[in-house]
Structure formats: C-alpha cells, structure tokens
C-alpha cells in the first residue's frame, strides 16, 4: 500500500528491539564516526581486525529506528569478513538484509556503510603508520 510506505519491516524492528553488537571497543583497530546532516543521526563503528579479518565489531548510534537497525545488521554482516570483502558492501546489501526501508529512510543505510568505510580507512591509516613506525 502506497500510503503505508513508512512502516518498518519485521526485520528492521527485530534489530531495533534487540540490537546486536551494541557498545564500544576501547582498543579498536579502526573507528568510523559519521554524522548525517539530513536528520542529525550519528554513528560510531568500532572494528577489531586480525590477519585482515574483522574479528569483532561494535557500534553506537544516535538516531532513529532505521539508523539503529542498519547499524545492528551491518555489524552482523561484517563480522568474519576480510577487509576487502567488507569494503565491497553497499547500502543495497544492507537494505536487502533489512527487507527494505521507506524512501525517506534510505539514507540511514548509507550512514552505516559510510561508517564502515571510515572505520576501514582508519584501520588502514593506523596500520600504515604502524608499518612506517616499524620501518
């Protein structure tokens, strides 16, 4: 139903009710912090990486239902992935897993993917500087 486009899917509400991987990793290997100017949402993503594989991940999100569930599902998705695999994830992958989002809420899935990209970038930067330091 057209007028019902705003409703959240069951999947979205499931993750909202019981968000997975919520919290902070004090000694993270990479941190992605992104804010969404459209609606004021903010997401922090923390990753632990070992042998190029994401071994742990946590998030903190200030935002709406869609933002929180996108965060939760994304953390589920990337745990165990290699950095390269994770890097290839798009907002559409997140959307699919969430059984879709209303058009006005699409940007929330973007937020999660952006946080991931930033966390990976941060992880690479740290590794680089580590390597440089090791040289």
């Amino acid at each position, binding site marked *: 139903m057209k007028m019902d486009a705003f409703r959240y899917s069951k999947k979205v509400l499931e993750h*909202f009710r019981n*968000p997975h991987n919520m919290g902070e990793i004090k000694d993270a290997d990479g941190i992605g912090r992104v804010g969404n100017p459209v609606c*004021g949402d*903010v997401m922090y993503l923390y990753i632990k990486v070992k042998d190029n594989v994401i071994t742990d991940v946590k998030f903190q999100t*200030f935002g*709406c*239902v869609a933002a929180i569930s996108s965060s939760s599902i994304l953390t589920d998705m990337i745990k165990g992935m290699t950095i390269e695999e994770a890097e290839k994830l798009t907002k559409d992958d997140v959307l699919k897993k969430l059984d879709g989002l209303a058009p*006005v809420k699409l940007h929330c899935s973007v937020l999660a993917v952006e946080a991931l990209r930033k966390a990976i970038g941060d992880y690479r930067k740290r590794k680089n500087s580590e390597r440089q330091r090791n040289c």
Partner: protein
Amino acid sequence: MRVYLDNAATTRVDPAVAEEMKKYLTDIYGNASSLHAFGREAREALERARESIAKKINANANEIVFTSGGTESDNLAIQGICLAKKKGKLLTSTIEHPAVNNTMLAVKERGFGVVKLAVDSEGFLNLDALQDELSGDVILVSIIHGNNEIGTVQDMKAISEIVHDKGSILHMDCVQSFTKVPIDVKKTGVDMISMASHKIHGPKGVGALFVREGIEIEPLFYGGPHEFGKRPGTENVAGAVAFAKAAELMTANEISKIKSMRDYLVRELLEVEDSLLNGPGIDNPNRRLVNNANITFKYIEGESLLYKLDDYGIAVSTGSACSSRSLKPSHVLSAIGLDHKIIHGTVRMTFGRFNSMEETKYAVEKIKLCVDELRQISPFKHSFDNYDVKG
C-alpha cells in the same frame, strides 16, 4: 496495558457521544434541508447543536459554520478572506499547524503578502512585532491559539486588541484549545476561530468555524445554500450533534483531572538527567494547554523512543501526527530556539479524558526505562562532544 498519550493527534470518541450520534444515523436520518417531518427533525437537531457550540464560546448560533474538520476551518478562514478581499497582506506566526502554514504558502503563491511573526522561547507571540507589521493592507492575522506541539496558549484578548486597533481581522486556530481554555468571542473580540470535534472526544470529520457576523468570507466550494452560504453540502447532522455533545462533556472537572495527570508526568520526567520541558511552565492553564507535555531527552532520538514505547503499548508522538512521516525537524521547536542537535530527542505526550493515573505511572516508568536503554546505544552520554564528525 495500552496507554494512549497522543490525544493532541486525535481522541477516543466518548461512548456517550457515540451513542447520541447513533440516534442521528439510524433514527433521525433526514436531510436537514428537506421540508418534510424527517427533514424538520434533522434541522432541529442541527440547530440545537449549533446553539450548543455557539454557547461554549459565547457566540451567536448564526456565527457557527459547520465544516469537515480543523483543516477545512483554517482554510475557510484564510482562503475565504483572500477570495473576498482579492489582495493584501496576511500575518501569521512561526509556530502554526500545517493547515495554516501551508495555506499561507498557497495564498502567497497567489500573490498575497505573507509575513511570519516570531515567538519567544516559550512560544508566545512577539506582540511588538505584530504591532510593527500591522498596516492598512493587512487583510488577516491568523495565529494559533493553543499550540499543538508545545501547548503555548496565546493571549487572545491582547492580540485581538492590537489587531483591531489597526482595523484588521483576527483568526485564531483553536483546534487544540477549544473547551480546554475558556474562549469568549464577545469579550476578546476575535473574528474567526477554528474548532475540530475529534480533538475533544467527538468524531473525526466534523469541525466548525466561528465567523463573526459582518465578516465577509467566500466559500471554498460551491453547491446548495447550506450553512449560510459559506459551506455547501448535505449537513452532517449526526456529526454536528456528536461534536456538540462532546463539547458539553468537557467540564471543568475533566479538565482538572487531565491537568493533574499531565503535571505528574512532567514532574517525573524532568527528574531524568538531561531532560527539558519545551513550552511554558505547567502551572498556569491559561498559558499552557492542560493536556500537553513536550519533553526533550538529550542524546537520543524521539522516533526511536516512540517505537520502544509502542512495544509497551504506549502511544506518544514526535510532533504533530501529520508530520510524523516527515524528517524535517519540528518548525515549532526551531522557532522557540531549540538547538537542532536536541530537537530530534523530543516527544509529545498529550492526555485525554480516558487516561488514568495508573496509566500515567506505567508510562513514566517505561519512558524512563526506554530513555535509558537508548542512551546506552548512543555515542553521546553527557555531552554532544564530537557531534560534528568531519569527513
């Protein structure tokens, strides 16, 4: 437990109102414009309802035009004056309901001047600004009486005096305030007021516009000679009767019961760390709608709180119902100067006659719990440090 705390969006129809209404659906069902006995019975019921609504605001019965609701009433007042006057300037506030806001936009596109007057941090109209902007070509001033989001009740008499001093016409959107704040159109001199049945435990689809005798407005649509030529269409007799009945049931007793529940909730929730009440203080019922609580919880987002509470059967709102599907931060909260970071952490809880103290206590408990849970997910805890994350 199910707790409906969204009575500013709409209300449960009082069973006594529904009962009365039914009679005019299945028994007294004539067309009020018909000449035969079935029609005359319907006409009498309609006119009794009109008298009753008129009495509530100290108007004359022939000054009450029944409409389909608050939106139509607002439009009839504003577009009605514009169609009658053909050109000129209109003044309004920065905290209007979309029914006024978007109508102002529409008449602006048709060449009318529209100026929005600022409000203070509690939502009260800047009367000096009003005075300054009033000039000979102002054909209408339209100000919301009881604000639907933050409950601010404007000083009808003071505004009316200023507007009339300059010879203009005053419309007030009383959709939220009608029956909750005493309104006397003779004492205040207001020229038009909008009302809606479904905000006071009457049915949806019925409203009224008070139009002072002598004020000329053009109708929004055309047809038969109903409603003094101002609003054609077969009269909604059952709706009008139900609206009148609902208004009669809003007694001082009910109002004070509503206020005490609201007051309890506000006091409790302000004990939550980093929470604040938007709009005027809760003490003076003539400055703030007695059923309205609008509270910001920092570091969380209102929609998330709404959905969490929904799981507990508690209904609240993040703004007006009709903007709940939009992402734009509330223009009302922006207008009173709330920072955009915390605007989104706002929920509105509005009481009605069918709420109980038990429900209120349950709601307080769950709201505290949910705010706490959401703050645990949030990256912000005691400040918005690091909010402006850079690329």
